[in-house]
């Protein structure tokens, strides 16, 4: 310091991991929000036609031979909430220094993340559509695969938190909390995606 400024002790960085995850969550929200907006725009712009009896107007968006497997989609939604409970359990345990609970909770969180990936693959399998089959199909794969990538990123984050946990980083509360925050944000995003893509279609 070349000027006479009052000196200060090195400040403890203010929850940097939490803030970074919060900031990157904004990116994740706008990424998926933008994709959902494009989805809605294309759906709204899909051509309409009258039914053969002339009583209804049909929108040519979801091809009629495609059935959305709602059980698998709803399972994904429920799994997200179950995963949140586990992530919160990890956060709770980390705060109180319950190491074994924290490690177990992180492990289960990872497992539930894998279950979500499995459910998404089940959705693809049950729908039986090809990415080359048409506009709806390619857009469906694009938006759900992007969501899947975000889930895999979350699982990687959980794995890092778990390795740090079993590696003896007992004071690593912030990383576990930040990891929980990421899953909260991802659950919120999936709720929107579930409603728009799987419910409203």
């Amino acid at each position, binding site marked *: 310091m070349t000027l006479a*400024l009052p000196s200060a002790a090195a400040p403890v960085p203010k929850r*940097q991991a939490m803030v970074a995850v919060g900031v990157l969550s904004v990116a994740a929200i706008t990424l998926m929000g933008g*994709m959902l907006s494009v989805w809605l725009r*294309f759906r709204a712009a899909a051509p309409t036609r009258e039914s053969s009896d002339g009583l209804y107007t049909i929108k040519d968006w979801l091809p009629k031979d495609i059935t959305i497997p709602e059980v698998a989609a709803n399972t994904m939604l429920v799994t997200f909430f179950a995963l949140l409970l586990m992530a919160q359990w990890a956060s709770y345990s980390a705060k109180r220094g319950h190491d074994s609970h924290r490690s177990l909770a992180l492990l289960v969180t990872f497992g539930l993340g894998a279950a979500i990936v499995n459910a998404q693959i089940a959705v693809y399998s049950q729908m039986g559509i090809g990415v080359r089959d048409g506009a709806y199909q390619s857009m469906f794969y*694009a938006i759900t*695969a992007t969501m899947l990538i975000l889930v895999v990123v979350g699982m990687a984050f959980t794995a890092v938190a778990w390795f740090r946990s079993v590696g003896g980083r007992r004071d690593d509360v912030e990383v576990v909390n930040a990891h929980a925050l990421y899953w909260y944000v991802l659950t919120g995003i999936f709720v929107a995606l579930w409603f728009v893509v799987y419910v409203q279609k």
Partner: protein
Amino acid sequence: MTTIETHAQATTASQRDAVPQLLVGIADWVSSSDHKKIGRLFVALSWLLALGTAVVAALIGIERITPSTALIDADAAPQLLAIFRFGLVYAVLAPTFVGIAIAVAPLQVGARSIAFPRLAQLGLWLWITGVATVIISILGNGGPAGGNSDMVDLYLLGLAVTAAGLIAAATSAVVTVLTARTAGMSLERAPLFSWSALAGGFAIIASLPVAIGTVAYIYVDHTYSRVAFGGNYAVNDHLGWSLTQPLTFVFVVMAVGALADMGPVVSGGRQPLRGGALAGIGLVTTAVLGAVTQSQHVLTWTGSAGDKIQSLITFAFFNLLPVLGVLVVLALGALGAKSGKIRPNAAFAVTFLGVSMILVGMLGNALLNVDGADLIGTVFEEGATVYVAYGTLLAGLGAMAFWGPKLWGRKIADKKVFGAGALVLLGTVLAAFPQYIAGFQGQPNGAVASFDYDGPISLWNGASVAGHALVILGLLAFVGAAIKDFRSGEHAGDDPWNGHTLEWATPSPAPIDNFSELASVASAEPVLDSKGVSA
């Protein structure tokens, strides 16, 4: 989680003997997690790419001088245009101030390092890899209207990687300003440039993922089905918004912040309406809303009174609010100049002129979106982008002349900064203003040959070529002066401008961990406090 990294010496003495010094230096810069080096690499690479972009722009202009004669192969013209537009926005406009923020913001907030330095480093390399990928893809007949499908896919991938790099770098800067401020520095007391790094960084983080999401759709569709998004020639129908206004305004927030920061230093007093400056910078970030809606918000003065008011409100919200932000900052700068004892320097003058050029581009964009002006689809839009991009480049030259002494320990002579700045300013006006006029006369946007209108085509496009050439000359002159003076120029001293903020309280060049001793601050101008200047 800690921000502080230990920086081991890159090599030992014996290694230095064995390995050529140049290679050691390059390896040190390439692998460094020192934010000052990462930021300077960002800026240096963006200036190198700016030279290339200006050369391409000049080639396009030469072709347009005689649109009836094709000097460039007709198939190559769309590729050149694609490189030009991508280069202006993602190689010049976006990275310049992201780099300056990475280099300067941690010093301003009194931090020993940037938050997540490896993330900033990752951002740099992702960005340059993405830019290189895009250029390679366009040269390989890819790009938004390319004929080679694989190269179009590569272009989309490169665009996403470029955006991801900028997001990563912006995240690092934003988290630094939010979490690594020294004791006593609340957000209200954060330096104005750091505030703009926070606001502009957030705007980047909020807007570019939307482009990545759109790329994901187009990539899947283009690779597999080509039904929803229309194949090679329709890429820009869906992604064109990411190469023009108002998204470009998102990248100028930090340029406006740099000017706001320099103003009080030049006027010698404290910023009397600091809240206004903070709000003005914030207003520029509203451009993000106009960008992510992915449509032009045109003022149509037809229909009922209600329709007119609705159109006016939408138009003003999306087109005029960012302009208002720049005007507020410029007005506060003028007020400061009036109230204080002025100590002008070339760095401030060049930044001021750069932001003025940005303002002309913003006003042009507002005019473009007035329905009766009939400017949409003309080169007027290209002129606005050139004003904004070259204006930001000019402001970046000023900012580097201002903060360069803190990064290198020496300063560039004022005459050289002003001379190079004047060349770039003249070049900007010559490159962009004729496009405004040609736009009124109906020269089509995105056309290089085979167009005609009732006006001196050769004059407007010839002037534009001369403008791009002057920008190249000015940039080369500045880089030459910087290389010479930052190596062997006048020693700057620790506080060459009689600055107000913390970066001027540490030695020049700043040590690797920025501060030998961290300071506690009690106002927004802690260095002025220490000099005994009254509030």
